C-alpha cells in the first residue's frame, strides 16, 4: 500500500525533477515564452501572433508535456497546417481579402518600390552562406527579409523545417519592430529637403474592371514567370479577387475574420510548439535573429536609395521616404512613412503613396520568394 502511494507520488514529482535535472533549456524557454506573452499583452506587439506563439512555447517546455510528441495537440496542429504549408497559404487568402490595392493601381510604377524593398533578402542569402549555413537553409533564412510572416513560414516549412521556429519568430518580431528600425535609416539616407517633398494628391483613376482583373493578371503573369511560387501568389490574389468581385461577400468576410482568426491561433500554437528548449537554444538561433535584422535594415536602405533615384528621375516630384514602404510589413511601413513625412512638413500627407508602395512590397515579397523557389527548381536543387 505504502509502495503504491510512493509510486503514485513519484508520478507527481517527475515534472519538477525533470526541470531541475537537465531541464535548464526548458526553464530558459519558459522565460522566453513568458517574455513573448508580456510583449503581446503588455506592449501590444503583434499580440495576435505573439500570444499563441508564447503560450505554445510555454506548453511545449513544461517537462514531459508530450504536446509535440506523436498525437500531441501541438503536433496535430503542426502536421495539420504547417508541415504541409496550408496555414500560411490560408493566411494569404485572408491578407488578399483585407488588402486594397487601389493606391498601387493608381500609380503602377510605384510597384517597382516593392522590388527594391526585397534587396535585403539576397544580401542576407550571401551572409547566411558565408556563415556556413547549407544552401536551402540560407534561402529560408534570407526570406525573413521579405518582411512577410506567411512567406517566411511557407519557405522554411518546406525547405528548412528544422529552422522554422527561429525564422518565424524572427520574421514576426522584426515586423513588429519596423517603427523602431526604419526611421533612423530613413533619416540617415535622406536630406531634410528631400523629406519635405510634397507629392501630388492621388486622383481616383482606376475602374472596377481593372480592380477585378488585377488579381487574375498578377496570378497569370507571376505564375508563368515563377510557377514554384504560384501557391503564394495564387492564394493572396484569390482573396483579393473575392474582395473586388463583390459577389462573395460571405466568403470574403469569412476569410478576413473566421478563417484568419482560427488559422492564426493554430499557426501560432504550432510555431510555439517548435520552440522546445533543447532544439531551439543553439548558436544558430542567435545568428538567424542577427541576419533577420540585417535583412530588414537592408530592405529599408535599398528602398530609400531607390526612392532617391526615383526622386532624381522625376525631377524631385517623388519623396524618397516612400521607398521605405516598399518592404512588405503592411500597413506598418506605410504608417511609419506618413509619420516621418509629417514630422518634417505638417501638411505632407504621404500615406496614400506609401500605401501604394507598401502593397507593392506585399506583392514584391511574394514575387521575390516565388522567383527564388523557381530559380532553385531551375538549378535542380528542389
Amino acid at each position, binding site marked *: 500500500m505504502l509502495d503504491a502511494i510512493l509510486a503514485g507520488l513519484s508520478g507527481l514529482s517527475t515534472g519538477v525533477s525533470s526541470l531541475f535535472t537537465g531541464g535548464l533549456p526548458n526553464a530558459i524557454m519558459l522565460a522566453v515564452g513568458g517574455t513573448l506573452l508580456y510583449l503581446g499583452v503588455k506592449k501590444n506587439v503583434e499580440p495576435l501572433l505573439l500570444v499563441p506563439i508564447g503560450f505554445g512555447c510555454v506548453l511545449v517546455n513544461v517537462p514531459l508535456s508530450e504536446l509535440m510528441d506523436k498525437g500531441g495537440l501541438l503536433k496535430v496542429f503542426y502536421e495539420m497546417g504547417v508541415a504541409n504549408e496550408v496555414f500560411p497559404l490560408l493566411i494569404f487568402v485572408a491578407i488578399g481579402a483585407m488588402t486594397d490595392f487601389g493606391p498601387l*493601381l493608381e500609380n*503602377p*510604377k510605384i*510597384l*517597382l518600390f*516593392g*522590388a527594391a524593398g*526585397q*534587396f535585403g*533578402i*539576397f*544580401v542576407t*542569402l*550571401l551572409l547566411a*552562406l558565408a556563415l556556413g549555413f547549407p*544552401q536551402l537553409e*540560407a*534561402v529560408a533564412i534570407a526570406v525573413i527579409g521579405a518582411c512577410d510572416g506567411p512567406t517566411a513560414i511557407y519557405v522554411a516549412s518546406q525547405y528548412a523545417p528544422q529552422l522554422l521556429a527561429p525564422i518565424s519568430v524572427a520574421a514576426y518580431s522584426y515586423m513588429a519592430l519596423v517603427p523602431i528600425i526604419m526611421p533612423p535609416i530613413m533619416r540617415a539616407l535622406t536630406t531634410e529637403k528631400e523629406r519635405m517633398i510634397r507629392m501630388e494628391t492621388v486622383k*481616383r*483613376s*482606376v*475602374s*472596377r*474592371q*481593372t480592380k477585378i*482583373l*488585377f488579381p487574375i*493578371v*498578377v496570378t497569370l*503573369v*507571376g505564375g508563368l*514567370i*515563377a510557377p514554384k511560387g504560384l501557391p503564394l501568389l495564387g492564394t493572396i490574389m484569390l482573396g483579393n479577387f473575392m474582395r473586388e468581385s*463583390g459577389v462573395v461577400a460571405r466568403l470574403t468576410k469569412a476569410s478576413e475574420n473566421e478563417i484568419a482568426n482560427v488559422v492564426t491561433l493554430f499557426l501560432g500554437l504550432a510555431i510555439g510548439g517548435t520552440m522546445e528548449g533543447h532544439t531551439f537554444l543553439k548558436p544558430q538561433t542567435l545568428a538567424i535573429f542577427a541576419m533577420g535584422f540585417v535583412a530588414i535594415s537592408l530592405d529599408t536602405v535599398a528602398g530609400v536609395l531607390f526612392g532617391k533615384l526615383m526622386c532624381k528621375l522625376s525631377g524631385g516630384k517623388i519623396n524618397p521616404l516612400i521607398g521605405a514602404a516598399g518592404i512588405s510589413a503592411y500597413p506598418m511601413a506605410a504608417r511609419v512613412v506618413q509619420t516621418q513625412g509629417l514630422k518634417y512638413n505638417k501638411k505632407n500627407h504621404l500615406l496614400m503613396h506609401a500605401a501604394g508602395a507598401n502593397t*507593392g512590397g506585399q*506583392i*514584391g515579397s511574394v*514575387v*521575390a520568394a516565388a*522567383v*527564388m523557389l*523557381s*530559380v*532553385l527548381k531551375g*538549378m535542380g536543387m528542389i
Partner: protein
Amino acid sequence: MDKWTFGFTMMIVGVGGTFLTLWILSLVIGVMKRIFPLVAEDSNPENKS
C-alpha cells in the same frame, strides 16, 4: 555548384527576376487602365454595389 556561385546566381537572377516581374506587372496594369478607363458612373458612389 559551390556556395558562392549559388549565392551570386540567386542574387543576380533573384533581384533581376523580381524587378522584371514587377515591371511587367506595372506595364500590364497601365494597359488595363487604358482599356478599362474610369468612367463617370464608376466614380459615382451611388452606383457602387
